[in-house]
């Protein structure tokens, strides 16, 4: 399997992750990702191991309690309007 990561692949992943990159970053990451992913290939040799079923869900009663006020929750937003977060158009 071809491990070489090309610029196009880096741009695709960056678009999925919603992180813009400049051309220099794309080139550098393509090179570094190839090395790192090749290193990760060692995971192919890991034997199948039974995962222990030791975890239990911890439940609590669903009771109303005090939380942040709307004002507090909005205080770090760059833009708000009428008590809402204000973001760019979705479409």
């Amino acid at each position: 399997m071809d491990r070489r990561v090309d610029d196009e692949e880096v741009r695709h992943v960056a678009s999925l992750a919603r992180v813009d990159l400049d051309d220099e970053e794309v080139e550098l990451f393509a090179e570094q990702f190839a090395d790192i992913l090749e290193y990760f290939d060692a995971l192919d040799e890991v034997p199948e191991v039974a995962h222990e079923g030791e975890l239990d869900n911890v439940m609590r009663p669903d009771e109303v309690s005090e939380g942040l006020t709307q004002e507090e929750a909005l205080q770090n937003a760059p833009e708000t309007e009428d008590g809402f977060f204000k973001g760019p158009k979705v479409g």
Partner: protein
Amino acid sequence: MAAEGDDLNAFVTRESIDPTGEGPLSGVRVAVKDNISTEGVRTTCGSNMLADYVPPYDATVVERLRAAGATIVGKTNMDEFGMGTTTETSAFGPTQNPTAPGRVPGGSSGGSAAAVAAGEADLALGTDTGGSIRCPAAFCGVVGIKPTYGLVSRYGLVAYANSLEQIGPIAPTVEEAAQLLEVLSGHDERDGTTREPEDGTDYASAADGDVDGLTVGVPTELLEGADKGIVETFWDALNDLEAQGAETVEVSLPSVETAVQAYYVIAMSEASSNLARFDGVRYGRSGGYDGNWNETFARSREEGFGAEVKRRVLLGTYALSAGYHDKYYAKAQDARAWVKRDFDETFAEVDVVASPTMPVPPFEMGESLDDPLQMYLADANTVPVNLANLPAISVPAGESDGLPVGLQLVAPAFGEHTLVRAGSALA
């Protein structure tokens, strides 16, 4: 962007936060890593993305510190979002190592360890996702404890990799670290993964240095890659423990050979999901760009995140993407289960597992920045502990070529008493 009057740049923000009660930490100055929320005091995570973020609430550990009488003296510098081993990926500039001038303090909790080593704080909180408390403790010649997963509440910790990370203490001595751990630990209804340990949380009284009859396992795999001088210092410290009545035996943990790979795949995958919240709308930088949501989002993140964060978010996205999930993420979970099983089997034979905390001495400033993979490899001895959800302590073991060396002890889950007892025989 270093804070004024701060030669080491150990603090991103110097701000005195008063105690709310009196207790075991009355009169004690505690520094808090800058990814732990402090009400009304900015919490940057070492990132431009959160340069102006002011939390509206205190983390549980901050509430507990203040109630126990502590005075918080500031928020400490760190690798951006905890992603690094040197504190050099911080958007607020690197921190100097007070114990080894010209060298990095380790990371990601480098500011916390440097502040304690330099006496700028009596104690500090760090966070440890893959070694971020133990590495800087080792590099700065102080004590650091990574608690068992679930011992300390993560409520108010800005998440990087939830399934791996814990908040823990950094202190000059094991006894002081144990006192701080006592204050931090125990169930919190706001973190469903926390629980009250069966043997209680009376850790400070365990700092009696009694190692008579203690069996210490030394995994050959964790010595193979370490520098010669570090291995010599490590054995000197073990000889010291043996002279006090401990017994050392060789053990084998074959699964650690793929622990670094598993750790990075899991941590990056969790990071890619956790950091999706930084969109420049709810918090973070908004450039006021034109365009639709996705375009604006991507540009805000280009500007707000540094290179290491972008690298990990992208690689995590890649590892979880269609066609690669089974190859990377699923195999990493197998490797994680394998590490857990290896430790379980080893703890049937020994009380604690010992290794050098770091296989290398503190890097020179700037040395590791160009080669991320080399930096990841330095985490070989610390990441298995996070994968297995276990507690570990790093204690100063001496020096090699004039540079501090840390010794790591690992115990079974909720075995913090054992770590404190054994560690206090050394520091």
